[in-house]
């Protein structure tokens, strides 16, 4: 299966999904006005990727800002991975990176970690 890549800009994140290694990176800023449309190909790729059971999946979030609309999409991605973990014997791990001084980004990570039942690492940098 092909890898997935979106080159980031000021308002969309850089997205790099490696099908072979199972390493999924989302990095940068996300405040597209139409996140449902923007993330549609992301969900399509993930759906295909997660149709193969028992994969090792590492999702690295390294965001510096995202709007509330993106926040919903991120929860949907995490929920897909949570379902995969339990229904398809996935081996999923989430790494949530945040700038050390960014207490809001740290709190966002903590909230997501409470929302899904997945190994969730909060990593300051």
């Amino acid at each position: 299966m092909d890898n997935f890549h979106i080159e980031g800009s000021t308002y969309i994140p850089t997205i790099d999904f490696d099908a072979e290694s199972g390493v999924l990176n989302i990095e940068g800023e996300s405040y597209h006005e139409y996140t449902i449309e923007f993330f549609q190909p992301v969900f399509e790729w993930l759906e295909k990727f997660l149709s193969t059971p028992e994969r090792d999946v590492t999702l690295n979030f390294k965001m510096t800002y995202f709007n509330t609309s993106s926040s919903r999409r991120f929860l949907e991605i995490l929920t897909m991975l949570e379902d995969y973990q339990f229904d398809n014997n996935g081996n999923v791990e989430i790494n949530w990176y945040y700038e050390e001084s960014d207490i809001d980004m740290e709190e966002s990570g903590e909230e997501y970690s409470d929302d899904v039942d997945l190994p969730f690492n909060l990593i300051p940098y």
Partner: protein
Amino acid sequence: MANPQDHFSVKAFKEELNANSISLAFQGVFTHDILSLIGHSLRDAPNNQIISKRLFAIAIEMAQNIHHYSAEKVYSEKDSRKIGIGIIAIGEDYKHHLISSGNYIESKDIENIIERSDFINQLDADELKEYYRAQRKAPQRKDKPGANLGFIDMVRKSGNPVEITIKDSKDEKSFFILTVRVNKEI
């Protein structure tokens, strides 16, 4: 030909902005490029970094409310759809940064908006957090591109209520002003 100054005085406009300590104001179509510019300008301001990010976050949520829900829309060739117009201004008083947005809304929506903001304004920090998480889990509202989290996020980021003023209410449309104060001291 009339002197343009008869119609509009840039100097008087600037003086009014100064008198209200407005550092940034934009009126028009809130495209992504405009949002990015506002973001850069706020982040380059000599504020505490976390406060600058919070100001930016609040401005983005306001701009996206205008983009999606303003009752005044113009067609954008680039986006191939109609986009809302309105105004956002950022100023300050002694203790706060102030962000205000203004746009026309459908008068029939006023009651819901005020009910929602009143509810959110009386929640404490923990309740806000729980409400935010519950709303984020709720299904996407039909035909609404937004996440229904904007007001909650504004109150959480600012630590202050969202203040709503309605002006020139007419049968169909009313002017909606939303103001959020962000404390200068965390």
